[in-house]
């Protein structure tokens, strides 16, 4: 196999690619909204850019000191003053209204989530707790997620993005993620899911996502959290909720017997 084509194996994943300029593909309505807002705003941005550069170039051209040493001395024009006051105040409104609509719709949680996952940042790994199925304070499905060192990478895995234990979530259901660190501020960010939430010590931040398609989503820590900040990636694996149920209960069995809690930790 030609190794130069190996990048194709990661192409279907929702991870950053070399020289990427655009967004990663959206997997949640939130990210779709962000991309749409970006395109909406870019419409006005290009419009203003073209208009302003045209005025600038025209002014430089027509009022060149050799060509036109004594320019016209207009000091007042009511029509143009009205126009250049009204339009610049309308355009920000066209940008602000969809922007605020998106902002508040992302913030608010309208429906009851199906599962709660606690993403706890550590220096420098992440711990995930699935405690919806507990019947006591002690037992809970908890595992650590470490990055895979460069030497242990297998062909097709992304450098500094792959972890040993991925976060398993059901697709097409509402998920609450509680983000908090145990030591210094961290951040939990996955671009494809449109999520970037800072983890502040002593505080629980909630984000609610609903992954619309099965897949593996990659993200990285987005808050400088120490030396190994670059080595604390996030990998979210969305599976159909049927498979989620069976895989979580498979993990719960060793927990209830208690013998394999060490196995989860490794």
């Amino acid at each position, binding site marked *: 196999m030609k190794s130069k084509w190996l990048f194709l*194996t*990661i192409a*279907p*994943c929702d991870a950053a690619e070399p020289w990427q300029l655009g967004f990663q593909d*959206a*997997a949640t*309505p939130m990210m*779709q909204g962000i991309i749409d807002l970006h395109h909406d705003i870019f419409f006005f941005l290009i419009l203003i850019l073209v208009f302003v550069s045209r005025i600038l170039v025209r002014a430089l051209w027509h009022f060149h000191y050799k060509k036109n040493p004594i320019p016209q001395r207009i000091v007042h024009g009511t029509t143009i003053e009205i126009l250049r006051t009204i339009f610049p105040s309308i355009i920000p409104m066209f940008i602000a209204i969809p922007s605020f609509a998106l902002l508040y719709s992302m*913030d*608010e*949680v*309208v*429906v*009851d*989530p*199906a599962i*709660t996952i606690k993403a*706890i940042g550590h220096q420098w790994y992440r711990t995930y*707790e699935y*405690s*919806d199925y*507990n019947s006591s*304070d002690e037992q*809970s499905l908890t595992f650590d997620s470490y990055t895979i060192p460069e030497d242990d990478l*297998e062909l*097709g895995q992304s450098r500094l993005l792959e972890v040993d234990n*991925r976060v398993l979530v*059901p697709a*097409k*259901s*509402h998920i*609450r993620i*509680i983000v*908090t660190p145990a030591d210094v501020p961290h951040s939990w960010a996955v671009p494809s899911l449109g999520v970037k*939430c800072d983890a502040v010590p002593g*505080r*629980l*931040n*909630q*984000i609610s996502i*609903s992954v*619309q*398609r*099965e*897949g*593996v989503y990659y993200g990285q820590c987005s808050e400088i959290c120490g030396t190994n900040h670059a080595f604390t990636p996030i990998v979210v*694996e969305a599976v159909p*909720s*049927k*498979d*989620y*149920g*069976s*895989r*979580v*209960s*498979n993990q*719960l*069995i060793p927990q*209830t017997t208690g013998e394999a809690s060490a196995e989860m930790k490794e």
Partner: protein
Amino acid sequence: MVNNTQTLAEQYYVKDEQVKTDEVAKPVEVKDVEKPKEAPSQEAVVEKIVEETTPIAPAVAAEKSSEVAPPAEASTEEPSSGSVEEENSEDQDAAEETPEIKLETAPADFRFPTTNQTRHCFTRYVEYHRCIATKGEDAPECDRFAKYYRSLCPGEWIDRWNEQRENGTFPGPL
């Protein structure tokens, strides 16, 4: 303003006789049905799913320990294969006694509509222990509060609070 409206504290006060509130956790299946209307990206999404199935496979294999047979695989094999494998999978199922998990968790609470859920977790913890104090150690009415706070609070916090309660230094109103 008429004075007979209850304050939040009164509404959530654990009474001697437990009144059923309407915020009992609903099953999740309902949400799957209502999903399409809020997913504008779905048509775009469907074509993506096809090409995504391959890269997951190695991780799946690695995560599952060898002695625990995944029931999902077993069920797909059953219709195509002979009776021998069917028996095998049944034996395995019986041996495992897979606990059927219900997808439910602490509901969205109108008292805590913001991103900051710190007090949500704390309040649920306090509510549970006040419930226990009123109704006795293993009252079934308190179970849902226990589920809520376990879903919301990090294990480390719960351990710390449990310790504080034993020492009598817990800062909350118990």
